[in-house]
């Protein structure tokens, strides 16, 4: 039924007190939805291994479908499975979490911002550079480059690999000789 459940006995006492809400009579004993502050404290108290959260402003990478490879920002959460997602080159739309991979980058935006606000926030947070300098981003750039090589480029890569291999082996041979001697 779409609730993020944490078993009661697993919780730290202080955190449990923070969560329990005397006004909540209708929820069949299940926990009230957790506010972000509680999630943070949970994460520290329980040492939850989650570092990337679905939240407003989280930058995500689309991993399936027509929009594969695009970086989008989560601007609102529709329900347990879907988020409203936006990007400077895209009309705001909904997407399933199954099609997203969360990144480490988070920007500061109000809920469902105007396009201009979104673009400004992305500029100040410098999402593009952060992404391209992150290891994930760099790997993608390399993948793209490799995929776009033509035959001559691949020939050049082959020669470069042979050259590099030769240089490594030379150094290794030197070290071996020094070791023996």
């Amino acid at each position: 039924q779409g609730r993020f459940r944490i078993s009661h006995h697993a919780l730290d006492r202080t955190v449990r007190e923070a969560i329990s809400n005397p006004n909540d009579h209708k929820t069949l004993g299940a926990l009230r939805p957790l506010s972000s502050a509680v999630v943070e404290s949970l994460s520290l108290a329980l040492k939850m291994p989650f570092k990337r959260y679905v939240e407003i402003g989280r930058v995500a990478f689309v991993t399936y479908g027509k929009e594969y490879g695009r970086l989008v920002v989560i601007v609102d959460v529709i329900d347990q499975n879907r988020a409203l997602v936006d990007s400077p080159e895209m009309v705001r739309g909904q997407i399933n979490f199954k099609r997203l991979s969360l990144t480490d980058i988070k920007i500061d935006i109000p809920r469902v911002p105007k396009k201009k606000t979104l673009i400004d926030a992305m500029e100040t947070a410098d999402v593009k550079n952060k992404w391209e300098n992150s290891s994930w981003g760099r790997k993608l750039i390399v993948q793209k480059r490799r995929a776009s090589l033509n035959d001559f480029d691949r020939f050049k890569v082959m020669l470069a690999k042979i050259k590099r291999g030769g240089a490594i082996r030379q150094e290794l041979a030197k070290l071996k000789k020094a070791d023996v001697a």
Partner: protein
Amino acid sequence: GSSRPFHKYETDNVFLRSSASAARGSVGGEEREGGDDDLKILDMVVFRFHQYQVVGRALPSAIDEHPKIYRMKLWATNEVRAKSKFWYFLRKLKKVKKSNGQVLAINEIFERKPTKIKNYGIWLRYQSRTGYHNMYKEYRDTTLNGAVEQMYNEMASRHRVRYHCIQIIKTATIPSKLCKRESTKQFHDSKIKFPLVFKKVRPPSRKLKTTYKASRPNLFM
């Protein structure tokens, strides 16, 4: 002519377009940002259920020169079915059949703001194995068609009720304060935050799917 709505359908303003101009736009109607056409649109969901407005009346006859015109908003997969459903309901309410009536207009109704998340309340009447029941369900979605589709799917899964056994009485956009169900209310948090706990990364296209894999998947986000 006078059109008296006999079914209280959702009263918020719905953006109406004739079916012809609808063909020009795309399914579901998406927002064009400032007339910028090279903005990409996310995989637009093709709705199974479309919302139609059907307007019809009995044929004018010697007894009644100007019969009352009735309008109805309903959900159907296509226009033909919408007209059929219109007569089905109208027959139950007034003494008129398709054979002595005429449909004056049928227009598809599109979502006015398909990028705004709304809470939809749907009142329905369905037939179970033992009788008829009324129900009120809430859904959180960007479009009414999406919410209706969710409703049909949920009724089928939870109650084994199929499409033809469900009659939508009323739909409405509910402001967050008035939502009744916990499962929609739990998303009414401006600082909502949760981790994706179980994440199976799937191949980016179905072509790259394989039955066997060399290594077990890493489910951690």
